[in-house]
């Protein structure tokens, strides 16, 4: 609780110092270095008087240096203006849109942004807050790394990066209140049904379950009513990888829900853990052979009984 007033105090103090020590405006557009003199401070923040939410105004130069936008200077996106201090109001009026820059990009053509925008507009976020929810609500362009640019080996990094975007708001009731002014149940409560919750969150992205459709619909984020809840959606044809996931949960359940309940509701079996082509096909072939053998024998009995009708009931 102490961090916010302290941060605001520092911010105000620095801005005040700037306003008396610096010239009121730059003659030339300021360099990145000039921007980062303030925005490079980890504590730079601003409290939105309308929602009461605290907005982080700090830019992590290291994150920026490894982001997709590392070659850009501040002014490439932020354009002109913002020469005076403080520039809260001016910055608030700034309407940055991804498409403004990406319109002519070869690497990331406009059509893909349009497709993203289409699915984004169907998302629960946009539906609930069409005015205030933008790309930047989730994606910090100063720290944005596209998955396609990352190697498969860094999958945990991808998971962490993408989930951090969701958890920044959803991890706490306060986080969501900053955005919406409303209180929501915490992630831990809404995901209590999910076995090994934290392990799931560390290994798969929220959007694996909370989006509709396939790859190109990653921005069609859905709420709990439409999210995937069927374990077999992921855990099918999946073998040893999953075999250890729920192992120690049952003991906890035996303590809390009673013995009989825990046995009947037992879910130690991991979907797909015994799937193997040899087992599946071998089983199918054996069953088919047995059925064929039985059917053949039955047919032979029927035919022989017809040819010697009386002998059978001898």
């Amino acid at each position, binding site marked *: 609780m102490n961090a916010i007033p302290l941060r605001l105090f520092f911010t105000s103090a620095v801005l005040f110092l700037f306003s008396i020590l610096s010239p009121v405006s730059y003659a030339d557009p300021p360099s990145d270095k000039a921007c980062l003199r303030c925005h490079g401070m980890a504590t730079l923040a601003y409290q939105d008087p309308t929602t009461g939410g605290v907005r982080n105004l700090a830019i992590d130069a290291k994150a920026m240096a490894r982001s997709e936008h590392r070659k850009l200077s501040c002014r490439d996106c932020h354009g002109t203006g913002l020469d005076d201090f403080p520039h809260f109001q001016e910055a608030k009026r700034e309407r940055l849109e991804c498409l403004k820059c990406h319109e002519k990009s070869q690497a990331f053509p406009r059509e893909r942004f349009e497709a993203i925008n289409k699915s984004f507009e169907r998302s629960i976020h946009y539906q609930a807050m069409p005015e205030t929810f933008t790309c930047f609500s989730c994606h910090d362009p100063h720290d944005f790394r596209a998955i396609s640019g990352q190697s498969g080996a860094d999958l945990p990094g991808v998971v962490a990066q993408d989930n951090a975007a969701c958890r920044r708001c959803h991890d706490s009731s306060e986080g969501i209140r900053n955005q919406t002014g409303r209180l929501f149940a915490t992630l831990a409560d809404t995901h209590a049904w999910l076995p090994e919750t934290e392990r799931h969150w560390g290994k798969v992205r929220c959007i694996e379950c909370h989006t509709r459709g396939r790859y190109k619909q990653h921005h069609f984020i859905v709420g709990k009513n439409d999210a995937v809840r069927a*374990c*077999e959606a992921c855990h099918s044809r999946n073998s040893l990888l999953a*075999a250890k996931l729920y192992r120690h949960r*049952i003991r906890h359940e035996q303590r809390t829900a009673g013995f009989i309940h825990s046995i009947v509701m*037992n879910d130690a*079996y991991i979907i797909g853990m015994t799937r193997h082509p040899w087992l599946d096909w071998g089983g199918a072939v*054996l069953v088919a052979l047995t059925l064929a053998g039985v059917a053949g024998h039955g047919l032979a009995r029927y035919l*022989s009984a017809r040819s010697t009708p009386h002998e059978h009931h001898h």
Partner: protein
Amino acid sequence: MNTTTELYPVWIRVWHWSNALSFLALLVTGVSLHFAEPGAPLIPFETARVVHNLFGILLGCGWLAFVIGNLWSRNGIHYRPRPQGLLVRLLIQGRFYGIGIFRGQPHPFPATRDAKFNPLQQVTYLMVMYGAMPLLILSGLAFFFDGLTPDRVLGMDGLWIAGVLHYLIGLFLTLFLIGHLYLATAGETLLGEFKKMVFGSTLTEEKS
């Protein structure tokens, strides 16, 4: 002097049909659990899981009742084939199913008070009831008490071993079920054996 024996006492019949019900439920739900995939035309995983657990408990209790009943009553003797000449008796029964049955020959080993099963039944039922079933139940219990299941068995995940074993025995018992159902039609009459298991079958033997 004549002795009258009920070959299928009521408790055996109740046990048998409870097994039959459990078997079918476990087979259908087991297939649904094993092949669970989105859109698969099977019982939903969450439903199949609970039903499988419930009928697994019923089948396990039935097996326990069967073992106790066999210790307590005469029924156990039918599951103890005499080893002497067993192979020859098996071959005779096999030849009957392979040749004799098509020629309308009589069953080579009709049911008696001391041996209601033919040699093939004796061996199969022995394997099923005292071999496969305990392993099936044990591998099922490995999931019920997964905290007690060893983490590693022979360098592999203990629960995975139990899962594969459970699948293989389930498969074997499915094959048994097919054969069992079919051979039940191969008694003296087509439906005679089914009727016996519903209404019982008294056997009168002359004793000197």
